[in-house]
C-alpha cells in the first residue's frame, strides 16, 4: 500500500524536517543578533551542541509527574501541529483539520507548559505563566481576525486549498496587504520576540516560565522554540506567500518570514504585559478589521 507508506513517511518526516529547519532558524536568529551587535556569532552547529548539552546535564530536577507531562505536551503539541502544516509534496493529513483546528492545536503546547510550570510551585514561574497567557490573549485576537479574513477571502478553511488558490491566482499578500501587515505584527508576539518578550526575557528569567526548568526540561523548551519558529514561518507563508511549489522556494520564503521579526526584534526594548495587550489590541486589530472590510 503506497498510501500507508506515504502516510508513515509524512508522520515521521514532517516533524523531523520542522525540527531541523527550526534549528537552522535559531542559528539564523543568533547570527542576525550578533551581526546587529557587531559580533561574529555562534558557529554552525551551536544549536545542536546546546540541545545535546541541555539533555546531557547531570542536574535535572523534576517537581512531579505534571511537570514531566507538561513538557511532553509542549513538545508533542507542536509535533502534531507540524503534521497539519502542508509543505511541498506532503499534505496528506493537513486537510483533516484546517486552519481553525491548527490554531487551537497550537494552544496545546502553551497549556502543557502552563500546567508543567504550575506544578513547580514557584510563584515566579506562575507569574511568568500569567504573563504568557495574557500575551496569548493579546496576540491571538489580531491573529484570529487575520485568519478569519484570509479564510473568508479564499472561502475555505483548508490550508491546502488556500495554497492552491494562491498558486493559481496571486499571493495573498498582494490581495490582502492590510491583513498581511496585521498578521506580521501578530507573528511578532506569537514568536515571543522583542518588544513582546517580557514573559521569556533573559533579564526576567527569575520571573518567567523557565525558572524551574533545568537540564532536559530546558532542552524541551529549546526544542519547542525550534518548532515554534518553524510553525510561525510556514503558517504565514501558507496564508500570504502562496506556500511553496518546491522545497527551495519554500525554505527561502519561510526563512525570510522569520528573519523579518528577528531583525525588528533586536532594535527594540520590551513592553510591559499590559502595554503589549494595549498595542496588540489597537494597531493590528484596526488594520485587520479594515482589511476584512476590503475582503468581504
Amino acid at each position, binding site marked *: 500500500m503506497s498510501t500507508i507508506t506515504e502516510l508513515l513517511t509524512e508522520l515521521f518526516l514532517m516533524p523531523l524536517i520542522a525540527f531541523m529547519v527550526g534549528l537552522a532558524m535559531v542559528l539564523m536568529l543568533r547570527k542576525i543578533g550578533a551581526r546587529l551587535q557587531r559580533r561574529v556569532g555562534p558557529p554552525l552547529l551551536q544549536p545542536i551542541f546546546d540541545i545535546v548539552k541541555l539533555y546531557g546535564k547531570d542536574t535535572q530536577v523534576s517537581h512531579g509527574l505534571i511537570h514531566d507531562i507538561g513538557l511532553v505536551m509542549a513538545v508533542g503539541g507542536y509535533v502534531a501541529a507540524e503534521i497539519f502544516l502542508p509543505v511541498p509534496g506532503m499534505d496528506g493529513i493537513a486537510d483533516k483539520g484546517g486552519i481553525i483546528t491548527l490554531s487551537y492545536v497550537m494552544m496545546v503546547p502553551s497549556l502543557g507548559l502552563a500546567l508543567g510550570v504550575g506544578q513547580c510551585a514557584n510563584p515566579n514561574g506562575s507569574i511568568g505563566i500569567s504573563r504568557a497567557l495574557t500575551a496569548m490573549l493579546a496576540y491571538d*485576537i489580531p491573529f484570529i481576525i487575520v485568519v478569519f479574513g484570509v479564510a473568508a477571502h479564499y472561502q475555505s478553511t483548508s490550508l491546502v486549498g488556500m495554497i492552491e488558490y494562491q498558486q493559481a491566482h496571486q499571493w495573498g499578500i498582494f490581495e490582502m496587504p492590510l491583513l498581511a501587515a496585521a498578521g506580521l505584527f501578530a507573528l511578532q508576539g506569537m514568536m515571543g520576540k522583542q518588544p513582546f518578550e517580557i514573559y521569556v526575557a533573559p533579564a526576567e528569567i527569575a520571573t518567567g516560565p523557565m525558572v524551574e526548568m533545568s537540564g532536559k526540561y530546558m532542552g524541551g523548551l529549546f526544542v519547542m522554540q525550534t518548532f515554534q519558529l518553524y510553525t510561525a514561518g510556514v503558517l504565514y507563508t501558507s496564508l500570504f506567500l502562496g506556500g511553496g511549489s518546491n522545497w527551495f522556494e519554500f525554505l527561502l520564503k519561510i526563512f525570510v518570514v522569520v528573519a523579518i521579526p528577528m531583525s525588528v526584534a533586536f532594535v527594540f526594548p520590551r513592553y510591559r504585559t499590559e502595554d503589549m495587550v494595549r498595542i496588540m489590541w489597537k494597531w493590528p486589530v484596526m488594520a485587520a478589521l479594515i482589511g476584512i472590510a476590503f475582503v468581504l
Partner: protein
Amino acid sequence: MSVLDDLLLFTALASVAIIVVRRFASVSKLSVIVYALATVLLVKMSALGYGGEPIYSSFTLNVLGQNLYWRFDSLSWFFALITVVIALFTSVFMSGAWAEKYCQEHSTEAYGLLQAALVLNVLSMLVLLASGDLLSLFIGWELVSWASFMMMFLNQDKVARKAAIKYIVYAMAAAMSILMAIAMTYSMTGSLDYVQIMQAVAHLSNTQIALLVTLYGVGFGIKMGVIPFHLWQAAAYAETPGPGAVFMGAISARMGLYALIVIVVQIFSLTRVAAIEIPYTFLNMQNILAWVGALTTIIPTYIALKQNDARYLLAWHGVGQGGYMLLGVMIADSIGTAGGIMHVFNYATYQAALFMAVTAVMFRTGTSNFSKLGGLVTQMPLTFMVMVVSIIGLAGIPPMNGFVSKWLVYRALLLDGEPLLFVAAVIGTLGTILSVYKLVHNTFLGQLRLEHQDVKEAPLSMLLPMLGLVLIIFGTGVMPGVVLDWVAAAQNAVGIAPITHNLGGIELAQGGLDMIWVTGVMFYGFAVGAIVFYFLGGKSKHIHQFDNYAGGHFLTSKVRYHYSNHFYAGLMHLIGGWYKDFFKKLEQALVSLVSFLSQLSENFYRSAQPAVLVAAVAFIALWFIMSSFSMPADTGTVAPITQGIQGGLPK
C-alpha cells in the same frame, strides 16, 4: 400506553416514592435505580434520536376548548437524554461518602430533601420537554422554576437564600413575560397548539412577530441568563449544595434554550425573524438575537475571570457558554445550529465533571476559595485529571468534545461572513482559556498548604461518575458523529436542514473536520514528545513538593507563597477599569425604584394623618370631576377667550 406515558408516569411515581422514603438511607440507592430506569426508558425511545416520528402521550386535557397534550420529538428527546443521564451521574456522585458527610453536617432530612429536589427537577424538566402546546409549555415552565427554587433554597446560608430569592423574582418576571406572550399569541392566532400557530404565523404582521419574539425572548432569556439578565444565575447555582450545583449547572438553564428553539426557530422560523428589520440600523431581529448570544459569551466569561471562588468561576462560565449555544442556533444554517445544539450536550458533560471535581475538592478540604487551596495535584491526582480533561473541553481545545461544537459555530460564522460575531466568539474562548488555567492552577498546582498534607483522593463513589463523564467528554470528542446523529434529528424536528456528517466530524469541500484523524495525530505527537522526554537525555530527579526556592531563598512550607491572588495582574491593569458593573447598577436602580414606590404607597395607605389622606382623596376626586365636566366646556368657553385676546391685540 406509549413509552412516553411510561416515562412520565414512572418519574412521577418515583418522585412520590423518593419523597416518602427521604429520611431513610435507602433513598440514595433508590434514586440511582430510578434514573437508571428512566435512562432505559429513554433508550427505548432512541428511534427519536435517529429521526423517528414524535411519540405522543395518551393523557390529554381539555381546557376552555383547548386541547392540552404532551409529546416527545427528537429535540425533546435530546434534551431529556442529557437531563436524565446527568441526573444519573449526579445521583451516583451523591450516593456514597458525600451523603454520609452531608447527613453528619446537616441532617438526614436535609439530604432527603436534596434527593427530593433533584427528582422533582428531573420530573418537571421532562414535563416541560414533553409539552405539545403553549399552555402545557407554561405549566412545565412554572414547575421547572419552582423545582429549581426548591433546590436553591436548601442551602440555609444567607448568601444562598438571597440568591434563591433573587432567582425566583427573575423567574416570576420571566413567567409574566411568557404568559403575556402566550395570551397575545392566543388572541392573534386563536390557538395554543404549535401546529396551528405555525400555520397562522404566516398571516401575522412583522410588528406582531417582533413583539412576540421580544416577549418570549425576554422570558426564556432570563432562564438562560443572557445579557442583560445574567446577574441571578452564577450565585444561585454556585451556592446550591454540591450535587445540586452539578445538576443545575449542567442542564437547568438550558431549558430556556429548548423553549426558545421551539418557539422562535420551530414556530416562527428564523427566516421570518430575519425578515424583521430594526429601523435606523443595519440589523434585523435575528442579528440582534445573535449579538445577545455573542455578548453573553464575552461579558460573563470575563466576569468569571475575576472570581476568587471555584464554584462561582464555573457558574459564571455556565452563563457564558449559554451564549455560544444561542449564537450557534441564531446563525440559522445547518452547521451553526448543529454547533449550538451540540454544545448543549458537550457543555453538560464537562460542566457536570467540573462541578463534581470542585465538589470533591470541597469534600476533602472544606473550601472552594482560591486563597485557601493550591498544590492538591499530588493528593488528588485523579480529580486533577478529571479537571484537566474538562477544562480542555470548556476551553474548546482539541481533542475534547467542546472543541467540536465550537468549531461548528466558528465554521458557520466564517461561511456566513460574520467577522465581528466570529471575533466576539473567539474573545470569549480566549478569556475562557485564561480563566480555566486560573481555576486549575489555584486549586491543584502551586504550593500545597500544610493543613492539606493529609488530604486523600476523592472516594470511589465520587470518582466513578467523574471518570465516566471524562470518558464521554473524550469519546464524543474523538467521535462527534455519535452526538451529531441526534443533533441532526433534532434539527430536522425543528425544520432546519440537518447537518451532513460522519463519525469523525463533517466533510466539506472547503475544509472539513475529522476528529479521528486530529486526535490520532495529536496522540502521535504526544508519543513522540514522550519518547523525546523519557528516552533522551539524563535521568531526572524527583524532589518533594515542599522542596523549593525562589529569589535566592529556600522557601519552607510555612511561608505562603502560592501565587493565586490577583492572578492576571497585568491584564487587569489594562482592562480592570472596563468592569463598570453597569448591569449591577441597573438592577440596583430598578430595585430601588420598586422599593421606593412600594414604600410610598405603603406609607400613604398606612398614614396616620387623616387630614393628608382626605386632602389627597379630595384633590384626586376634584381633578377627576373637573376633567370630566370641563371637557365639553373647553371648546365653548376657552376658545373664544383666546380668540378674543388674539383678536383684541393691537396690530
